[in-house]
């Protein structure tokens, strides 16, 4: 199986820098429409009450003062008849990643900030804010755990006895179940020179994007128009319709939202569709358009890097890793794909223990971090224990599915007609040269700088995030349409605004494959056109969207050429008399005769010719799942240079070099943006990001961007070098595999090794804040 669609030698747009980004003008000028900008005549505003306690239940709720407050139009309570009339029970809500039982608007609050009890619908946002404070509530304040390990200690209070009267554990794969197992771990340990065990953990993070939580609902008789954040709008249609009994006719519009995959609303229906659902109910109840706001949502949607890892590794002193075993205690399941499918380590056992505890539900923001943290831990620890250069250990253990790279070459790359290149070798070679690794690398704690700081270097590597268009959601489709009347080309498919310029790369493909001028192509993914695409190039989802763009463009081109050769009404001459589609080609939104390039027509002329006889040119393509034998063949790596100030515990980032094999570059500007942004996120994760909870109440304390520390570009080191490699060794069009937040993930724990290299001290908990550094150095 060679890469889909071999790469041509020349493209007009694919791979070119400086292509004007499609969302650039609207976002830069402030004219881009976000959901909070949506307004309708007579529209009301709604806001929910949120739990002040980490675990609680309403005993009695008096909302009479709320209802009497001037400007309040409706109060939706947890005991409203609507719920029972529509068959809504607690069971309609679901567990998300994180095992929190997340009801739409329940009687119970499972974490501080959990929307619950009631929602106010009023004329203005300020009226909502004031009215929300007027309810008189009698509470049953219940025991809670914000520490996942505490929740599963023997004798812990059972948080949800109706779910399970015996334990707070929701998932346990230690004795079987859906754990990740490969080979014989014990045999691998037995065959090793050395077997070590250690515990490692990291604190939890919060995601945030440009626009806080919001949904707008407008009923038009039997039709329901929804304006909502999304990753996959189709799933909103499906879920909302199911909640309303399946009788609705729904249009979903996803406007600009500024990132975060539309708050991952496809993941669990009890999570992010709550705003959409509540907006729809409130609009139905009031008979008016309703905009439902939830300002605090960022602070109650956790990312899911946190966890406690119990790790065990067997290896030989030459750096060969024979077996790895991990048990992670965390809310979300572990992704072990990188270790199992992107190395030659033959024996692996990945286990997961998921407790129920009183923090908000997890979503998969930055979820590559988890698998990279695991991988970085194992490789860093082996480097520490063997004293070997970590780049050598990486190359020594590179492979696929437990096989080494020689096996991969003979049994995968050659039979599949893949380029016969070595991705890891290439990215490491480039990175070492650009970083000057051989001169900077040294043993642990061996280099003290003139300013008294410790000097250290770090290295991590990882595996391309997505390798197949099959991955995840395969029901994407899109259409390339040439607009009658003006000839401009539209790509029709909804998708979420991930904030990373993904319309541009799609349009670059359409331009090259259709032979259109890039400026003539429009991709506005806001309107409900009955089709959804995955993300563009800043995401790994591009491996799927690119297939649609290529196939639909090629179909549209063929239709266009056939149109040019077809006779018109009343048997009049075609646009290109006497020629066949094979005699023609396209370029810059024109059709021309190959043998006579002077003979040329514009797309507008072709599409409008004989308009009363022919339909518009619209070409659809839908991805269908196919059974390819796919493998993770592309790699990425990062090098970092740091200083550790022994007096303040500050870690100073001096230099960072990233090298990423993306298979094939479509939009280098997009990829670089994602590389730099991802690296910023990754280093922020290393150094400062952490949620903080009050131990006595379980209340989250750092719910603003002052107290929740988060890097901006101004906190980043310089120089900072991101580099892209194109080996073409992936299964997407042209051999691309997209890029995603890959460097956020790869770099997310790069300081584990770098700190050890600088100081000779191993740290067991991230982020590496000054207090942890000072403690490791014996200063406090």
């Amino acid at each position: 199986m060679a890469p889909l669609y071999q790469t041509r030698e020349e493209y007009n747009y694919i791979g070119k820098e400086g292509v004007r980004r499609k969302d650039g003008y609207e976002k830069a000028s402030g004219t881009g429409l976000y959901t909070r900008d949506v307004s309708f005549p007579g529209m009301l505003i709604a806001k929910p009450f949120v739990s002040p306690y980490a675990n609680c239940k309403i005993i009695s709720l008096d909302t009479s003062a709320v209802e009497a407050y001037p400007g309040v139009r409706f109060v939706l309570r947890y005991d409203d008849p609507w719920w029972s009339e529509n068959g809504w029970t607690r069971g309609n809500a679901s567990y998300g990643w994180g095992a929190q039982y997340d009801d739409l608007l329940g009687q119970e609050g499972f974490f501080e900030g959990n929307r619950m009890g009631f929602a106010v619908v009023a004329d203005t946002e300020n009226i909502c804010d004031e009215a929300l404070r007027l309810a008189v509530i009698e509470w049953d304040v219940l025991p809670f755990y914000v520490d996942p390990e505490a929740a599963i200690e023997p004798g812990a209070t059972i948080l949800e006895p109706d779910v399970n009267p015996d334990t707070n554990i929701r998932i346990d794969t230690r004795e079987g179940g859906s754990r990740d197992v490969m080979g014989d771990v014990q045999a691998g340990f037995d065959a090793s020179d050395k077997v070590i065990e250690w515990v490692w953990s990291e604190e939890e993070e919060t995601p945030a994007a440009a626009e806080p939580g919001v949904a707008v609902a407008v009923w038009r008789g039997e039709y329901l128009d929804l304006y909502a954040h999304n990753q996959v709008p189709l799933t909103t249609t499906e879920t909302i319709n199911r909640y309303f009994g399946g009788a609705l006719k729904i249009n979903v519009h996803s406007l600009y939202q500024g990132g975060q995959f539309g708050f991952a609303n496809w993941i669990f229906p009890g999570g992010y569709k709550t705003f959409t659902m509540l907006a729809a109910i409130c609009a139905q109840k009031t008979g008016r358009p309703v905009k439902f706001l939830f300002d605090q949502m960022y602070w109650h949607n956790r990312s899911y890097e946190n966890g406690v890892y119990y790790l065990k590794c067997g290896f030989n002193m030459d750096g060969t890793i024979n077996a790895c075993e991990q048990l992670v205690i965390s809310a979300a399941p572990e992704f072990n794909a990188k270790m199992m499918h992107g190395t030659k380590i033959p024996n692996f056992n990945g286990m997961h223990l998921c407790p129920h505890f009183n923090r908000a539900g997890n979503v998969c923001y930055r979820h590559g971090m988890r698998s990279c943290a695991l991988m970085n831990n194992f490789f860093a620890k082996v480097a520490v224990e063997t004293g070997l250069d970590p780049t050598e250990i990486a190359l020594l253990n590179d492979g696929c599915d437990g096989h080494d790279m020689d096996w991969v070459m003979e049994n995968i790359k050659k039979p599949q007609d893949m380029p016969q290149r070595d991705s890891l070798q290439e990215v490491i070679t480039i990175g070492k040269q650009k970083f000057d690794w051989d001169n900077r690398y040294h043993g642990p704690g061996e280099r003290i700088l003139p300013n008294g700081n410790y000097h250290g270097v770090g290295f991590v590597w990882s595996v391309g995030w997505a390798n197949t268009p099959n991955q995840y959601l395969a029901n994407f489709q899109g259409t390339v349409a040439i607009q009658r009347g003006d000839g401009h080309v539209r790509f029709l498919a909804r998708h979420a605004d991930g904030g990373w310029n993904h319309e541009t790369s799609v349009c670059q493909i359409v331009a090259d494959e259709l032979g259109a001028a890039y400026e003539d192509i429009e991709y506005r993914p806001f309107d409900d056109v009955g089709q959804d695409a995955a993300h563009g190039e800043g995401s790994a989802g591009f491996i799927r969207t690119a297939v649609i763009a290529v196939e639909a463009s090629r179909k549209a081109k063929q239709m266009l050429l056939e149109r040019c050769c077809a006779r018109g009404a009343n048997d009049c001459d075609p646009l290109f008399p006497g020629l066949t589609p094979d005699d023609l080609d396209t370029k810059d939104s024109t059709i021309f005769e190959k043998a006579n390039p002077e003979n040329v027509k514009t797309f507008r002329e072709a599409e409008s010719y004989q308009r009363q006889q022919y339909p518009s040119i619209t070409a659809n393509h839908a991805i269908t799942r196919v059974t390819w034998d796919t493998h993770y063949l592309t790699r990425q790596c990062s090098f970092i240079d740091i200083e550790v100030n022994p007096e303040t515990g500050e870690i100073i980032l001096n230099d960072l070099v990233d090298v990423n094999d993306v298979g094939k570059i479509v939009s280098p500007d997009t990829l670089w943006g994602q590389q730099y942004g991802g690296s910023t996120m990754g280093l922020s994760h290393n150094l400062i990001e952490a949620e903080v909870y009050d131990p006595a109440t379980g209340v989250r304390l750092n719910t603003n961007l002052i107290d929740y520390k988060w890097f901006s570009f101004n906190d980043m080191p310089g120089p900072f070098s991101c580099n892209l490699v194109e080996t073409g060794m992936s299964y997407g069009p042209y051999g691309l595999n997209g890029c995603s937040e890959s460097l956020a993930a790869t770099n997310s724990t790069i300081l584990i090794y770098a700190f050890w290299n600088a100081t000779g001290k191993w740290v067991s908990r991230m982020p590496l804040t000054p207090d942890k550094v000072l403690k490791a150095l014996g200063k406090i």
Partner: protein
Amino acid sequence: MKEFTHKNATTVDEAVSALQGGNAAVIGGGTDLIGTLRFHCLPDSLDPDVIVNLKTISPSLDYIEDDGGTLKIGACTRLEDIAKSSVVQDGWTALAEAAHMTASPHIRESGTIGGNICQVNRCWYFRKENNRFDCLRKGGGMCFAMMGENRYHAIYGAVGGCIAVNPSDTAPALVALGATIVTSKRDIAAADFWDVAIPGSTVLDDDEIVTEIQVPAFSGKSAFVKFALRKSIDFPVVNCAAAIGSGSASICLNAVYNKPVKLTAAEESIAGQTIDEASAETAAAAAGQGTVPLTNNAWKIQIAKAMVKKAILACA
């Protein structure tokens, strides 16, 4: 946000008069006040009904003057203007550096020095949205940080049981440089300006307005250093200003107590000494005297020592 009446004061007297109406607050840049109101950090009784705008006062309180060697800065002068002022940079370096290191460029373009020295003390329990914690500073019965998450809180003990810290960056510079705070009623030495128990942050009366900051001529070297987790925008974990002249030294820490802390022992240690690594380190050790580490903030003591040393060395 609680609804309030907004008044544009045209004179200082008019502003004072507006404050005398009860439950009122002044606004300059608004960078502290608006956030507090927006997130309902305080009980309704403490949120103002009237906000008095000082930026409309005439003659303007936005100026920087070298008046015969005394620096005079209007209370409504923006931090960015102070940071960029060559007058301040040349004569009162620590103050220019402190203004420059405050918050972010956007906030410095809006926030004023009057607001920076009058801002409410910092504690994430006190400032938790929806007035979640009825703490001592709000008239409640306990300090939640004392036994809770206190990694950024006071290392020199509590005041009335409260361990919130004064987060101002310009405050320690003003104390170290011997500034005077001029108000609508009186002149107050900077060292005395924050000397209050909870719930206040300054000694200002309810109807008193800061109008000007005066800093005397200074012929030695001064410096301001700050330790924060982010360079781009952050309150200090610890900051320190030092002003060292011939035979004299003035050193002040902040973000370590409910008010800036003058380090007399460190001053005595370094005054008249040759400034070098050893003398700076000896003086910095004084920062550890009198500290009362809590469960999570002992690291700040080490940071404080490092900042004192760094500030002294910057004056060499």
